[in-house]
């Protein structure tokens, strides 16, 4: 399967494997297409997880990861793409409706926007919170003091 995709997309896909798990690093430009091909032709009909990792030293700072599973093949695969800070990605909600809350959480925690998402707003943090906590430049004890003062009436959460 990987060979077929590689033949189709050439340098846009880089298949790798670690600890017995297969994953591929895909070019940003190929993104909605590859996911559609995986769902329609390769039967990866189950979106297990969507998440992101922040590498501030790299030029392309964010790694967005889709973990997909196929019932028919009993196989799990990861698709990774690398994007710049501020770049947005097309939403996977038209492909797998279950990606709705998963993408909202990635937006909430990292600030990565998904175009075409029906309702992209914060999910775990309050609506008017400023900052995206899982980025590496957000301190472990940092809080949005302005929100705390307005909403909780105390000076700071510390």
């Amino acid at each position: 399967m990987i060979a077929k995709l590689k033949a189709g997309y050439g340098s846009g896909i880089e298949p790798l494997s670690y600890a017995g798990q297969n994953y591929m690093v895909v070019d940003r430009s190929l993104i909605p297409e590859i996911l559609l091909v995986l769902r329609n032709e390769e039967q990866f009909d189950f979106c297990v997880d969507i998440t992101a990792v922040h590498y501030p030293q790299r030029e392309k700072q964010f790694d967005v990861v889709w973990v997909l599973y196929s019932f028919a093949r009993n196989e799990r695969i990861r698709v990774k793409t690398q994007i710049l800070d501020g770049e947005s990605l097309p939403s996977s909600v038209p492909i797998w409706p279950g990606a709705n809350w998963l993408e909202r959480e990635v937006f909430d925690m990292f600030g990565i926007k998904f175009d075409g998402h029906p309702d992209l707003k914060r999910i775990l943090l309050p609506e008017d919170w400023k900052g995206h906590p899982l980025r590496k430049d957000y301190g472990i004890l940092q809080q949005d003091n302005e929100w705390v003062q307005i909403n909780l009436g105390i000076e700071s959460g510390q």
Partner: protein
Amino acid sequence: MTDSNSSLSNLDLETPEKPFLDSNELVINMGPQHPATHGVLRVILRLDGEKVLGLECVIGYLHRGVEKIGEHRTYTMFNPYVDRMDYVAAVSNGLGYCETVEKLLNVEAPPRAQHVRVILTELNRIASHQLWLGTHALDIGAITPLFYTFRDREEILKIYEKYCGARLTTHAFRIGGLQYETYAGFEKDVKNFLAFFRPKIDEYEELLTTNRIWVERTKNVGAISAQDCIALGVTGPVLRASGVKWDLRKAKPYANYKNFDFDIPTGENGDTYDRYLVRMAEMRQSVRIIQQAVDALPEGPIMAKVPKVMKPPAGEVYHSIEAPKGELGYFIVSDASTQPYRVRVRPPSFVNLQALDVMCRGQLVADVIAVIGTLDIVLGEVDR
């Protein structure tokens, strides 16, 4: 008096030109503090009378930033944090995390450790389902099962306490195996529990399964089809009750589940009644697994050779287990230092909760309570 009468007679009460009370859609808040939402969950309901037109869940009241904490603790230090996410079934969380880090380190727990892990995890599955049964029945109005299921849960928690000192947030497993050897009398305790518990499942079934009120309240309530489940990413007993015969213990076996013989119960309609039957059957299967495991407990070491200061080579791994609530996954990225670079937890309750909207359309308000109960969510896991 006459003035108001004349003004009343001016009003055309037959066909108002514009509706002065828009009684078509009512937005009601089922706020974070509510006895039946199993934690701090806020549901905003759009109602037409009693019928639900749609709902929206607002979560995040229990968000503790566990993933952020994971980046600032070493691998062993993070182990206790993991129990606190799904605090009802803490042992499963620990199993998932330990197995994922073992994959990163490329070690495997010795056979005796894996056996004991299976016993404790299946006991945990029974305990979680018992709590589910008690609270779900309580929400629907059957108050009696709560007391009995919590009594059974007590027996399991006593075993945990004797084994590792803690009842709820057990921190039972270590990366590479177990820390504590099973105490003298562990096998006898487990066997006594199984003998005590087996007839109890039949008792609960007698109370509820053919009970007319229970059937009325749960049949055809919150039905979801298999395609919807797969599209929404729903896993666990909810998916099995919709007819998909899939269990991670059989599809991608971990922790020597290959050696045990058990069935995967499924349902047909995917409604609340089927989910109840599936979970009851799962408890029976868990009893079967524990019986096989405890009869064949091998001797040997309980801890693999794991370095004291853990620095797994750089790489990333995704591993998931069949927690009582669904597929619990861990995605850990390591950068060859003592602390993980990123810990991502894929919580089953979070993804299952998305299905609440689809399941409750067209149902009554009372059914929303039943559906929240049947999804078996734990807010600690939803919010992390």
